[in-house]
């Protein structure tokens, strides 16, 4: 898992550092997934039943990281959606998704 998370973070960082806005957004969402996986791993990967009343397993897995991840996914979803809309607006306005062209005049 640690390797997977590492790969996610490095890809995400690479994408964020590129010029294209769309890639930056993809990068943030990949880093986001890396962070969520890290949360899951750090909560401890154990063998155990799903923490549900219906599943009758003797040892249950720790439900807390899962609850946290669900919340974090919802938040990620919201921010990514907003970021996409923002990027789309910026694309309409500037006719480009190149970060260098978005920078504009230094002193306005």
């Amino acid at each position: 898992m640690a390797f997977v998370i590492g790969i996610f973070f490095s890809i995400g960082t690479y994408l964020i550092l590129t010029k294209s806005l769309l890639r930056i957004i993809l990068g943030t969402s990949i880093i986001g997934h890396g962070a969520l996986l890290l949360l899951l791993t750090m909560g401890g990967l154990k063998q155990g039943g799903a923490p549900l009343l219906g599943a009758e397993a003797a040892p249950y897995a720790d439900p807390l990281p899962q609850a946290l991840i669900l919340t974090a996914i919802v938040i990620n979803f919201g921010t990514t959606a907003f970021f996409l809309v923002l990027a789309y607006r910026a694309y309409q306005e500037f006719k480009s998704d190149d970060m260098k062209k978005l920078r504009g005049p230094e002193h306005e």
Partner: protein
Amino acid sequence: MKINDVILQTVTKIVTFIILTFAIYLFFAGHHNPGGGFIGGLVISSALILMLLAFDIETVTQTLPINYKVITGLGVLVSLFTGMASFVFHVPFLSQAHLHFYMPIVNEEINIATTIIFEIGVAMAVVGTTMTVIVSISRNKGDEE
């Protein structure tokens, strides 16, 4: 160029109902099993998005003239008011209570928690937000949220 999407449209007409039924199942499974308002809401909005894909946005807004932002607001209100009920009963915020029902037709004892009202609110909020975002992007006008 006119795209021939008869197959997609025909399939959509049937599949939408299957998805919606599944959404309702998921919604009620929520208390002790995987499911609940959030997932139910997402599945409902996936059905709506499928309709958007198969037909165009004008047709869908004609048949379903819903303002999704209002749905979001209503959903949040419903959820919050179930929480606020705790002020009346003097229990901690967001406490839940159970109701036991006897359903005559299926001959089964069923068990409903007050959480279900909260979940209805969550589902409405989720459908509202998702659809607002999708519709505003796809409408090409791009007004934010």
